[in-house]
């Protein structure tokens, strides 16, 4: 599989020969999308949502297996390593911009749309004629009370505060693990890395509880107007990213158990760390703009 133009000597920039994984990935993505279409269009039950993720898992397994194998063979020189790093950085940047779209929606709604509906600025008549009696405030589910007359908003001091602590701590533990790796202290590395993903899963569990609470007690749902939309979409996508990040941490941890990574070369470890910090930073923004202010 990993044959190369040159003997894999780490001297040259490694250019892999043909690989089946990318096309499998493309098919998996396609299956994911088609599965979702079939489900949303009521052609099939929700099972069709599963094909894509399963294929994706297989693909990731196979692709990473190949890459890890090549890495262990030592065919990646530092330049290849740098490509991976840059690739990961820019990927994270693209994720940042994805969240930016939703934050943009939140800010737009809070700064423009809702006040306008309440008659602010050039929109006095909008309020007077179309939405009489609506008073702009945040949180809101809009003048049409979409999703029910009454709902409670999410407090910043309950689970959100605890989760902030959980995530910040996990940022700390992963950094300790990183230092341990660089210093060659494997036991400490294993412990703190495990702590990190355990904290990650704790976060997800608490968030699940928070959602449950929202739906059952607060009457706060995805359908609760713009507040519910922005709240659940932002925290939901974030939670998804935490889950993915935690799974990646588990994989890295398993690799650590197998003795992978050296104090000097551990790109995968670092990539996951960056990702984890990114998730962390997004949370801070969420905490401030979604829960707190």
């Amino acid at each position: 599989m990993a044959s190369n133009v040159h003997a894999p000597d780490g001297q040259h920039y490694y250019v892999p020969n043909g690989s089946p994984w990318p096309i499998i990935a493309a098919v998996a993505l396609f299956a994911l999308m088609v599965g979702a279409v079939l489900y949303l269009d009521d052609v099939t039950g929700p099972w069709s949502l599963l094909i894509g993720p399963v294929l994706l898992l297989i693909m990731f397994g196979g692709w990473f297996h190949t890459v890890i194998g090549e890495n262990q063979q030592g065919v990646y020189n530092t330049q290849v390593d740098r490509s991976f790093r840059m690739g990961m950085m820019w990927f994270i940047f693209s994720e940042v911009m994805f969240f930016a779209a939703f934050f943009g929606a939140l800010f737009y709604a809070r700064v423009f749309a809702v006040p306008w509906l309440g008659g602010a600025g050039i929109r006095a008549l909008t309020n007077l004629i179309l939405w009489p009696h609506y008073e702009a405030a945040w949180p809101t589910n809009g003048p049409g009370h979409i999703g029910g007359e009454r709902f409670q908003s999410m407090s910043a001091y309950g689970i959100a505060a605890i989760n902030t602590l959980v995530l910040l701590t996990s940022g700390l533990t992963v950094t300790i693990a990183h230092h341990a790796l660089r210093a060659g202290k494997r036991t400490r590395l294993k412990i703190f890395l495990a702590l990190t993903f355990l904290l990650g899963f704790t976060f997800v569990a608490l968030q699940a509880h928070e959602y449950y609470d929202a739906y059952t007690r607060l009457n706060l749902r995805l359908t609760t107007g713009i507040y519910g939309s922005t709240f659940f979409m932002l925290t939901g996508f974030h939670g998804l990213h935490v889950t993915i990040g935690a799974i990646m941490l588990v994989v890295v941890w398993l690799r650590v158990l197998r003795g992978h990574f050296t104090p000097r070369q551990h790109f995968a470890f670092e990539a996951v760390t960056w990702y984890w910090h990114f998730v962390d930073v997004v949370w801070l923004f969420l905490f401030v703009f979604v829960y707190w202010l």
Partner: protein
Amino acid sequence: MAEPHAETTAHAEHEHMPHGWRRWVFATNHKDIGTMYLVASCVMFFIGGAAAMVIRAQLFQPGGKLVDPGVFNSLITLHGLIMIFGAIMPAWVGLANWMIPLQIGAPDMALPRLNNLSFWILPFAFSLLIATLFVPGSAPAGGWTMYPPLVLQFGDSFPMLIFAIHLMGISSILGAINVIVTIMNLRAPGMTLLRMPLFVWTWLITAFLLIAVMPVLAGAVTMLLTDHFFGTSFFNAAGGGDPVMFQHIFWFFGHPEVYIMILPAFGVISEIIPTFSRKPLFGYEAMVYATASIAFLSFIVWAHHMFTVGLPVSAQLFFMFSTMLIAVPTGVKVFNWAATMWKGSLTFEPPMLFAVAFLFLFSIGGFSGLMLALVPADYQYHGTYFVVAHFHYVLVSGAAFAIMGAVYYWLPKWSGRMYDMTLAKWHFWLSAIFVNVLFFPQHFLGLAGMPRRIPDYAVQFTDWNMVSSIGGFAFGLSQLLLPYVVWKCVRSGKRVEANKTWDGAHGLEWELPSPAPFHSWTVPPSEALIARGAEH
């Protein structure tokens, strides 16, 4: 200099070039992937063009009875999406794949397997998009801009549209990451940033734009999806949202998107004009800075697409001024190209012909863009054929002409053969004449009051529509020459012996044999070669 290198590659090629379908499906070679991108782009150009032909046939006369109005709206929607995401963008990625490693002295793209994935997502994405025509209910017919609430009215095809966009977005982002990493990390020693050819520079900046805005589009269409299926209220006033919010998010993506399509064109023109003027590019550094300024400005002008939605006056003023500013760096580019030709020793091979036509016609498109930026005047222009004329000038006689010029410029390098110059010139002249017959009258139509996106019109618009349609058919037919010329060249063109096809050409790609060997700079080029290539 090139000899020892040629030897190693010949050897490598013999041993490692894969054969059969695996070569393409499992491809990791930047040239193979580039070729696939270009072929796919050509196919999509013809599919999008076929839709355009139906549009022009319907509009040939009033009372148009060719297709149902709903189908017509689907056709313009698909035409816009296919041309932008299927024809123009993949063509640029294909050219990036082919040329960037050659031009910076790299062995390949930095992440070859990812490269393969970026490409292979596309056929799936467009199958999903085009399949919308065949599902029950209407295909998406809300225009390529997908404004809610209209777009939310479409049924079974709606999620197909959304997920096709997601796929295209993933493909573009991964492709752009690859380009950035290749340029930042794989330049040969000595290939400093300010020695890079402008095509590489413009692509570097384009890739940055792509990574910055494609995720925003993904976010926007995701909100459409949840508004449609899961009861969110992003674009629903009753729930505290705003339909116009979609437009803001969309155009935050959409305006940079149009520069994504034109910046690489600026790069290509900056390669072709010096070559056929036999003179270094005038003001290389200014060109780099101008490109960067355009990219920066492109993030703060988006609302010029929304002057009639009822923005506060202060916002309209801001977006008018920022939009007008873009004319300055763009002007710098045009002037630099003009200065490059000045006191040159010009010849007019097909690439140069396309480049010269680009200069004139892109500028005309830019001028109408500037007129559109004048807000009070845009109150009249907006939503009319004046806008359609504007963007086809910059997209067809701009971006598409630059792509054709690039193909004629580098085809001998790719194939090792020369194409039929006479036919290529025919292709050029027919295109250049009919593109104007096709799109110039649309300015008149728009000014005289013909809205865009209508399948039928008042009788006084007949005459110019007929002219436009005739121009359209002739332009479309002329395009058949392009694949024919390429095909003929690859099959039976005369072999080119020299590394350098054009006597005035500079740059590393011309130091490699023609056709370029399967693996590019397996041994990095020497400093001397780089310096010779970077004489600007």
